[in-house]
């Protein structure tokens, strides 16, 4: 049955290849992005929840 279904869509074989390529590239970019990320920035991000919530919350935005 699946043969019937798939044959009725034009160029079905390219669909999975295209999705695979898109996401493979996406993950490559993601990995590159993560592994070349600025250490200071990553450290700031990971410490976000620990900045005290209340009165003494000191902004750690580097642009400030």
């Amino acid at each position, binding site marked *: 049955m699946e043969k019937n279904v798939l044959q009725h869509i034009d160029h079905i074989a390219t669909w999975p290849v295209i999705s695979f390529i898109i996401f493979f590239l996406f993950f490559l970019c993601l990995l590159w992005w993560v592994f070349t990320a600025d250490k200071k920035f*990553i450290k700031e991000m990971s410490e976000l*929840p*620990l900045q005290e919530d209340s009165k003494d919350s000191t902004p750690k935005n580097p*642009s*400030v």
Partner: protein
Amino acid sequence: MELQKFYYDNKIVKAFYIATVVFGLVGMLVGLTAAIQLFYPIFNFNLQYTTFGRIRPLHTNAIIFAFVGNAIFGAVYYSLQRLLKTRMFSDLLSWVHFWGWQLIILAAAITLPLGFTTSKEYAELEWPIDIAITIVWVVFGINMIGTILRRRERHMYVAIWFYLATFVTVAVLHIVNSFEIPVTFFKSYSWYAGVQDALVQWWYGHNAVAFFLTTPFLGMMYYYLPKAANRPVYSYKLSIIHFWSLIFIYIWAGPHHLLYTSLPDWAQSLGTVFSIMLIAPSWGGALNGLMTLRGAWDRVREDPVLKFIVVAITAYSMAVLEGPLLSLKNVNAITHFTDWIVAHVHLGALGWNGFLVFAVLYWTIPRMWNTTLYSKKMANAHFWLGTLGIIFYALPMYVSGLTQSLMWKEFNADGFLVYKNFLETTVAILPLHMLRAIGGSLYLTGFILMTYNLIKTAYAGKFIANEEAQAAPLAKEYVATSGGWHYRVLENKPILFTVLSLVAILIGGIVEMVPTFLIKSNVPTISSVKPYSPLELHGRDIYIREGCVGCHTQMVRPFRSETERYGEYSKAGEFVYDHPFLWGSKRTGPDLARVGGKYSNSWHYNHLLAPDAVSTGSIMPSYPWLFEQTINLGLTAGKINALRKIGVPYAEDYEATANEDLKKQAAEITSSLKADGIETPSDAEIVAVIAYLQRLGKDIKAEKENEQP
């Protein structure tokens, strides 16, 4: 830059947490009631409103959407404000969200026991409530995104990513799965039929677990675990990879709920492959959580909050390894439709969701009331009661599932089924069902202890409705101090981020659904498969109302053990008029796909009146109300009309004469009953139910007979 003073809204968090505890108690009590009914059926008090088929969806909805849902909202409203250093976008929207959600829960609590259900698992609520859910969900989304847009912290912490993905994906899932055509205010038919309905439903069902029970909880883990352990997450880089790979892969795995069914093979294989791939991001996330505690394990011994979190993450890691294993076809062949699956979901619900919610409550309540926890000892007792509860729940269910499955499949030396009577396999596992109820009671006892502890804590402190905080506003011009633009592009652009998450989750859904929707013209048609007669249609709707699908499947898988027991395996072409599909996911009783013609009308009559009298030891409840209530003939035309609109080929104007056919078929059934000495009015609901049950599998049998020369 000058600091701005503002206030965090704790009042809304408090409201959601009160609702969490109240609905947790209710949901678990209903669950315990259902569990007891599975070995002591009379525990439904012979009332239709409390019968198993109706309270099982009440239990699942109460736990998922009321207990877990309120807990998610409470945690999001608490952490989002603090991570973004701003109050929620709009107090009004917050309260519309809160009361809207509680009204939906109330509507569910009323309609499900009344039997208003679509029968689609975790999406049982009827169409007006579906619309209300959509509206309230959008309110939540606007409030969350509005808050993000007026943040004082430039970058979105990873927890917020998980919250955003939750919002986007649940919206898509809910809308796509809820397409239905209304017949009355509380009755609708699923837009999709048979195989397509099954695929959409389990794409929804699977991802409801993913994006309601998992992603918001991972967000909570990434916020509350560093808080409770007082150290940053083990690897923030890993959390980024965790997020993207999890949301992308999760969405593809839905078809693993339909292995060996009539769903096309390619879709089944896709489900299996992506389920196996899912182990990587899931374990990546779990390890990231556990490794956060490196160097702080001594504190786990002291702090009940950390204890709960550690067991929660451990339960999560076990459940997310078990899930992919269950998606392997050879494992699925033994475990599907059995109590094993019940154990699997409860490991997730009791361990991962329940324990993480407890940790969050124990951590947050003393802080919001500016005090310390009333009794640490009591929290520790709760921890042990809960842990034992999970063990006593899950272990018996694993044994029960495996035992029953092996009994179903056992052949003797002559090639016959050893346990030909399904009931033998049910009776064998009843002691394990009793143990499960004990496990559930332990867990519930712990929950009650927590409730007392938290109330005492609140009374000892003073509630801070508006918590003062200070932070600098965001600079208009953003100047990066180091690195390039690309390091910050996602954390800095919430809308772009939301759109990207949407794209990631849409691709999997589209690739699975487009070909399956195109099947419509390609399903090998079975010429003998005809639409249901009006009487059978009414019977089917009563079958749906009573939640029969909660215990009986209509899907004979292509195994010899099943074809021997039930008859020919199920084909996709058989379900083309099934709005909704009723394949089911659990066999507490036997499969019914081929039950038509197997027993006499009077057998069904007596069996539904007193199952135990016909099959000694049966745990099926009796359905006395079917013998008193009458078929609503006024709805026939509307039902035929609605179904024709979505493609069921009833002749034009058939609705005008449908009731005549109905009465004719009913008269045939009552006269056959009369021949067996049973007098029943021909408009009693039981007549419609018998008509439906006798129809099941008949088309295929007719096809076979036609083939005979």
